[in-house]
């Protein structure tokens, strides 16, 4: 509710602002603030939330500006059509550049966007018949709603309204499952795919959205003063936007407001020092990143003591476990036929067959290097096998990707735990929970306040309680002990309500008591119908829990059977302990 009061307050301030300031110069600054903040919000979503770098946002800004200016100026489109069209141009360019991040990221994306911004700048400079080059484009229609005298005020109100809408959108992204998922994609791509996210689509979408916001800022800029020149779209613009993003507080929804205000303040106070403008920009960039990496918001947050999350008392184990009745799962059959996989000649899996019946625990054991992790990754879809087929309940999934398999009901845990450090334990579990509402419904619920994601949260809390770790829910994963982190990872997999669960060494590194409690959970899951594929070295755990066991050695299946059969199998004993000849 406080949030909506904030929005109303912002509307009131924006409405009154032009009448409170002494002259139109301040209105002009306020205009710059409004559209610049929109571009900075776009960068903050990209860099702060999804962790992708762009050094080419000046290019999208320029495309929005020229797109709208040319359509309105040369073709005489009304501004209310030309501005969305300009945004559309930036959006399309954003999708095209973003397609690069379908398969590249990090350094490559930084490089590609740097090159993109450079190409746009050069084109704007040299394609003078279209853009006017450095001499500029005169007579671009101004956004004044036909009233010359009040025009600047109307422009400000229009830009401020756009800013408010964009800010509300940004707040929602940060507060909702979308922000959580982007955080997950930022930190761990395998994790994100495991919970059913089509990572390239998400990456491209957030990149395109960010580009479109830069385009909107550029389009507004074009219609502010009626003149644009290619000078405005140099690398300095991109750097300025990046400075604003970082200086405000990266990855905070309100960072851009502070960042843009500080940037404009710096630009105005140092306007007379243009000879050392780059020196100042470079110096500020270094200072902010090295000394105040959390930006203005982070600095303010340090001055105001934050209330610490209080841990509720740990409950008695038996009482806690009764709080959740796991839903019945419809376990699926998992069939692996003739799967092989080799890494540049080294065979990791050789013609492996395995048939896992619904609702059973099937363990896969073998010495180190036997191919167990490769097998899990091939089944989960993170690796593609060279040969063979994998089917879930008779449905061939060999060619499908990891996120598609996750949506078919496959969940997994990782041996090297993949927990998202940027969000709380509870949010980590909520990443696995299937949303109850579609995007519009969820947005409206969020806007109304209160019950947003209440159902999903309750389910995640119940799972934490079931695992007896609900007192940890507000902590970050890195603050937990190793055993607790394993439980959180398991909780996330349970939240996905899988029909098949792949557990990669669920008790490695745990003490006997912790292992026993995980064994209880796994057998509970099995009793309620979930199919479980288990990779584990702890033989007590495996023998006590499994319905069937497959033994791998050097990528070959050397035995399969019930725990009793496996324990007596001479081949297995040889693989694990060596033969008498070898020992002698």
């Amino acid at each position, binding site marked *: 509710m406080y949030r909506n009061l904030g929005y109303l307050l912002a509307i009131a301030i924006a409405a009154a602002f032009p009448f409170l300031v002494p002259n139109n110069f301040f209105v002009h600054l306020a205009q710059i603030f409004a559209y610049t903040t929109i571009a900075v919000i776009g960068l903050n979503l990209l860099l702060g939330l999804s962790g992708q770098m762009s050094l080419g946002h000046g290019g999208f800004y320029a495309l929005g500006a020229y797109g709208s200016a040319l359509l309105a100026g040369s073709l005489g489109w009304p501004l209310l059509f030309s501005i969305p069209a300009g945004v559309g141009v930036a959006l399309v360019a954003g999708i095209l550049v973003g397609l690069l991040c379908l398969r590249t990221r990090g350094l490559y994306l930084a*490089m590609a966007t740097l090159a993109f911004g450079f190409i746009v700048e050069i084109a704007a400079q040299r394609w003078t018949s279209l853009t006017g080059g450095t001499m500029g484009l005169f007579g671009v229609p101004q956004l004044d709603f036909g009233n010359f005298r009040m025009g600047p005020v109307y422009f400000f109100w229009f830009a401020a309204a756009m800013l408010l809408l964009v800010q509300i959108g940004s707040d929602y992204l940060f507060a909702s499952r979308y922000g959580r998922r982007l955080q997950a994609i930022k930190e761990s791509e395998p994790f994100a795919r495991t919970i059913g996210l089509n990572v390239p689509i998400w990456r491209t979408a957030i990149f395109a959205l960010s580009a479109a916001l830069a385009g909107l800022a550029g389009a507004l800029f074009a219609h502010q003063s009626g003149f644009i020149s290619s000078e405005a779209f140099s690398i300095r613009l991109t750097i300025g936007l990046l400075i604003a993003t970082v200086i405000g507080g990266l990855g905070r929804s309100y960072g851009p407001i502070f960042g843009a205000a500080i940037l404009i303040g710096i630009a105005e106070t140092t306007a007379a020092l243009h000879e050392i403008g780059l020196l100042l920009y*470079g110096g500020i*960039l*270094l200072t902010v990143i090295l000394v105040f990496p959390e930006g203005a918001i982070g600095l303010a947050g340090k001055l105001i003591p934050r209330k610490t999350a209080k841990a509720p008392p740990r409950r008695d184990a038996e009482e806690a476990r009764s709080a959740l009745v796991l839903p019945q799962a419809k376990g699926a059959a998992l069939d692996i036929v003739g799967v092989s996989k080799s890494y540049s000649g080294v065979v990791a899996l050789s013609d492996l067959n395995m048939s896992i019946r619904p609702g059973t625990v099937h363990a896969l054991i073998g010495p180190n290097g036997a191919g167990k992790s490769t097998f899990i990754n091939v089944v989960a879809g993170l690796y593609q096998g060279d040969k063979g087929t994998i089917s879930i309940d008779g449905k061939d999934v060999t060619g499908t990707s990891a996120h598609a398999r996750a949506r078919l009901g496959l969940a997994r845990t990782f041996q090297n735990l993949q927990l998202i450090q940027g969000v709380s334990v509870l949010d980590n579990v909520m990443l696995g929970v299937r949303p109850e509402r579609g995007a519009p419904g969820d947005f409206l619920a969020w806007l109304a306040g209160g019950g947003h994601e209440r159902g999903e949260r309750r389910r995640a809390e119940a799972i934490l309680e079931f695992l007896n770790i609900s007192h940890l829910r507000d902590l970050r994963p890195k603050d937990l002990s190793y055993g607790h982190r394993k439980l959180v990872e398991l909780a996330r997999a349970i939240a996905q309500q899988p029909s098949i669960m792949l557990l990669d060494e669920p008790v490695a590194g745990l003490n006997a008591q912790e292992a026993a409690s995980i064994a209880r959970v796994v057998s509970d899951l099995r009793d309620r119908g979930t199919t479980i594929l288990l990779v584990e070295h702890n033989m007590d755990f495996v023998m006590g829990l499994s319905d069937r066991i497959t033994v791998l050695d050097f990528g070959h299946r050397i035995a399969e059977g019930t725990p009793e059969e496996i324990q007596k199998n001479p081949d297995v004993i040889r693989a694990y302990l060596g033969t008498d000849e070898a020992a002698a």
Partner: protein
Amino acid sequence: MTNFLQLLVSGVAMGAIYTLTAKGLFIAHLATHRLNFGQGDFMMVAAFLVMALLIAGVHALLAVILVVLALCVMGYLLERIAIRPLDALAERSTPYAWVLTTAGIALILQNLVELVWGGSAQYAPPLFSQSRDSVVIVMGVGIFVEEIAIIVVAFLVVGALYWFLFASRWGKAVYAVAFNPEAANLLGVDVRGVIVLVFVIASVLAGVAGVLIGPLVSLHPHIGLVFTIKALAVASLGGFSNPVGILIGGLLFGVAEAFSNYWDSAFGDLYPLLFVLASLAIKPSGLFGERHADVR
């Protein structure tokens, strides 16, 4: 035919410059997964320094030595100011903070050069020949002496780099750090030293490129960005992991650029760049690169 050979030599000369600059990006990225987004600006600074020394009457060899030493110091300072402090910040640090810190240094360098030498274009005296337009006649075609000298020197430097990487103990240390810094540390490799070393080498390579390029182009303080972009493009052709790929990619890029500039003087310099961007979309790990993934 005349044009063809001249363009080819010019292209190979520029390609050699791109290769040198890109090798600097490659070696820093190899060991640290970071690189200097001001690599082109380091090159620009070296070009201005050598120009100033030559005009002041310093002997060419001494000028080159002084500039290389200056770039060593710059590489060291870059690591100290823009790279090392980020490790202390650890998870508080911004994603890709190194992109922004090194770019920040580049902005400062541009501004300093502009303050000293002004913003207008400058022409550096040639290093190897009597005048900027001395030619030798090869197969009846006039070829610039300066370009040939550039090609020879660049190849010598690339050769020295390969010797360093593949035959020296330090080269092994670089690869050890690239593979796993913690393990390298346990094996007695001075990880911090290697990191400083790769940034110094990267900086020196930019310096050599700057010394060589001075007489080929008109210098101004903002020339660096273009070279950073092109060096990044060349390094990504080699997948940032394959030094031979970078050599081939750099030469191809230079030659392609020479011909496309000849063909379209207005936008010719953009086509090779667009080609690289398109090829990245199709083959993201570079034309010569490999990629590894391991999920457990």
